[in-house]
């Protein structure tokens, strides 16, 4: 076998060319990893929003809370179900909420965005333990006060603490900012349900959320209640409900990202091929020497292939390092499934690291294969004669 050292040293014999190839592959791996990080960040945000213990009910066939309408009567029937867990004071852990979308202007005047306003009840906070007030206070009942999610407070005009925002014919003062730990609630405005119902003139609810005493009872409960003609509702585990909201966006980003990565990778493979063909051409004489020393055709092939794979692996690592900085980047976009603004961060996962490296190795292997075959097929006499 040709020493590994020989292969490594060859990489550095032509620094400029190696560097340019590494950069090219790095760029491709960066784009490949970044698009996957975007999808995984979106999914992570939505999946973590829901809890395994909570169940959400919306009107049948309404897809999301936005289209859903639930009457007070339906809400009272559901709240009496025995599977619902109870607080220490004996009342069910059950909340009726209203969900509307309003149009607000972004702080940097970068246009408008649709923002979720959620009218919540006294049990809403207890049902979402991840939601914690980080500044200010909760609203006073009966007043036009609201609290804003952290991401929203940063991005939208009027949503910071002490500021006011106008909707539903009133000015609302933001008295607190809450952090919901990287969940979708961070992109919402929360206020008192009674005030919201008045302001929007909607004496109905959008969704009902409750905690199960035992999560395993969900299937049986769902089956029983969906047969109940008094409750035209869809029951979903909260986690499933939120996870489903990432569907349209993540499949869109996934398809776009894959297509772009494939086309990009073709460019990088061609780049690796050019480099490796040039390496073979430049080292023809060395190859002849190695062969006459007794190294087999196979070990020549191996050595060149290894060099190409090493170059692409360096590119892959470089691309991953660059993309891991994206982990600190938060983006905000309209989630098509809910028609409203959602802030999320890029998220790198072990799986993304592994697939990016495999992708890089693959590019190096494909790009280096033909040149390595050419090197291994050179005749000793011809290659020694080369000038």
């Amino acid at each position, binding site marked *: 076998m040709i020493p590994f050292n020989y292969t490594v040293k060859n990489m550095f014999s032509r620094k400029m060319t190696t560097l340019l190839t590494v950069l090219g592959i790095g760029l491709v791996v960066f784009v490949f990893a970044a698009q996957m990080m975007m999808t995984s960040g979106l999914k992570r945000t939505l999946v973590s929003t829901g809890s395994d213990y909570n169940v959400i009910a919306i009107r049948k066939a309404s897809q999301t809370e936005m289209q859903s309408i639930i009457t007070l009567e339906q809400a009272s029937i559901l709240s009496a179900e025995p599977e619902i867990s109870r607080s220490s004071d004996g009342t069910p852990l059950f909340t009726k909420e209203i969900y509307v979308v309003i149009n607000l202007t972004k702080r940097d005047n970068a246009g408008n965005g649709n923002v979720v306003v959620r009218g919540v009840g006294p049990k809403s906070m207890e049902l979402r333990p991840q939601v914690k007030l980080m500044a200010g206070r909760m609203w006073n009942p009966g007043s036009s006060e609201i609290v804003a999610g952290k991401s929203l407070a940063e991005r939208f005009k009027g949503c910071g603490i002490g500021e006011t925002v106008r909707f539903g014919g009133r000015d609302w003062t933001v008295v607190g900012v809450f952090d919901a730990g990287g969940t979708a609630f961070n992109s919402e405005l929360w206020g008192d349900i009674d005030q919201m119902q008045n302001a929007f003139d909607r004496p109905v609810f959008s969704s009902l959320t409750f905690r199960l005493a035992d999560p395993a009872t969900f299937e049986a409960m769902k089956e029983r209640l969906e047969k109940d003609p008094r409750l035209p509702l869809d029951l979903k585990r909260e986690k499933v409900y939120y996870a489903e909201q990432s569907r349209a966006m993540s499949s869109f980003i996934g398809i776009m990202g894959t297509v772009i990565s494939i086309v990009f990778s073709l460019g990088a493979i*061609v780049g690796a091929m050019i480099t490796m063909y040039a390496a073979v051409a430049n080292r023809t004489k060395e190859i002849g020497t190695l062969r006459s020393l007794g190294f087999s055709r196979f070990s020549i092939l191996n050595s060149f292939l290894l060099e190409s794979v090493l170059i692409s692996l360096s590119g892959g690592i470089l691309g991953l390092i660059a993309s891991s900085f994206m982990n600190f980047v938060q983006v905000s976009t309209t989630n098509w499934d809910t028609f409203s603004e959602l802030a999320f961060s890029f998220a790198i996962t072990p799986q993304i690291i592994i697939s990016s490296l495999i992708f890089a190795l693959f590019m190096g292997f494909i790009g280096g294969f033909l040149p390595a075959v050419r090197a291994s097929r050179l005749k000793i006499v011809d290659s020694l004669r080369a000038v």
Partner: protein
Amino acid sequence: MFVIKLIIRNAFRHKLRTFLTILGLALAVMAFGLIRTFITAWYSGADAAAPDRLATRSAVSIIFPLPLAYKEQIEKIDGVEEVTYANWFGGIYVDPQNFFANFAVDPPTFFKIYPEYLVKPEYMEAFNRERNAAIVGTKLADRFSWKIGDQVNLIGTIYPGDWPFVIRGLYTGKDETIDETAFMFRWDYLDETMRQTMPGRAGQVGWYVIKISDPNRASEISDKIDSRFDNSLAETLTETEKAFQLSFVQMAGTIIAGLQIISGLIIGVILLVLANTMAMSARERIPEYAYLKTIGFRSFHLVGLVGGESLFIAGLGAVSGLIFLYLVSKPIAIAVATFFPVFKPQPVTLILAICAAAVVGVAAAIFPVTRAVRMKIIEGLRVVE
């Protein structure tokens, strides 16, 4: 003439390498073109908006309806020619995956205000006659193989229930920029059904579209409409149809921005591939440059020689990439027709690609050129292969 010949000969000295370089550039230029085309396709709805149309929606957000009674009041405002209205129905055909736009529209006025939707008179007549008639775009009808007279049921998401419709007509676009994938049905069918099942939700429209007599008065008329409903229960926001459309298009603003960054990165890939090739060629030809200098060629000759070769290869790459782009955009346009009615490379994309290739050609030559120019003759001649 001689110089050009030399440049071309030089470019093809390593046939395989030059071929691969051109291939790499062509692929990247094609990808650049596809992304740009995609972005234009995304904005095509807004580009098709007419300047003499305004849209009025609830000031709170598009999900809040407006009373039907506003129609008469808007019609009275000076400069308003015709008013129509529509509701987003958001119905599902069998499975949520089969997404398409479906609206309830006001039969007598809608197609008057949207002359770009061409409907045959007999279809129009059937639409006006039958309460649950629907008119659909030809592309949408093709997608689900619907024929005139077929019954199509939509499951309501916003308006609960199972809604039966009968396809009574097709529409085509005036030209290829018009979306032919929408499903329109009669607003009164929606309203009468709501009146029976949920009376509180009857008499409400999603938005108004207003045809005005003079596009130059758009902002003045918008202000008049909005101030008419100031401090009412349903305040309005009126904007040009283009702005209205853009507010939907921009829901993907972040993704579009990401794509724009990626299309910039592609230029980087092109640059790396070409710079690599040029650096290699220049390194191999150092002795030649020394000979040329010895014979009396000046620095600017070398600049022309190396730069010319770089530009030549970049040009070939860009041209082949654009040819690829045209070849692939046809089948892609057919594949994505249901989402993007208009998917066609724009002239500006071609110009941008050529400009990018020229910049890349120059940039890739900088390193080899400086090397050739700075090199002392004696060093160049001393190089041994």
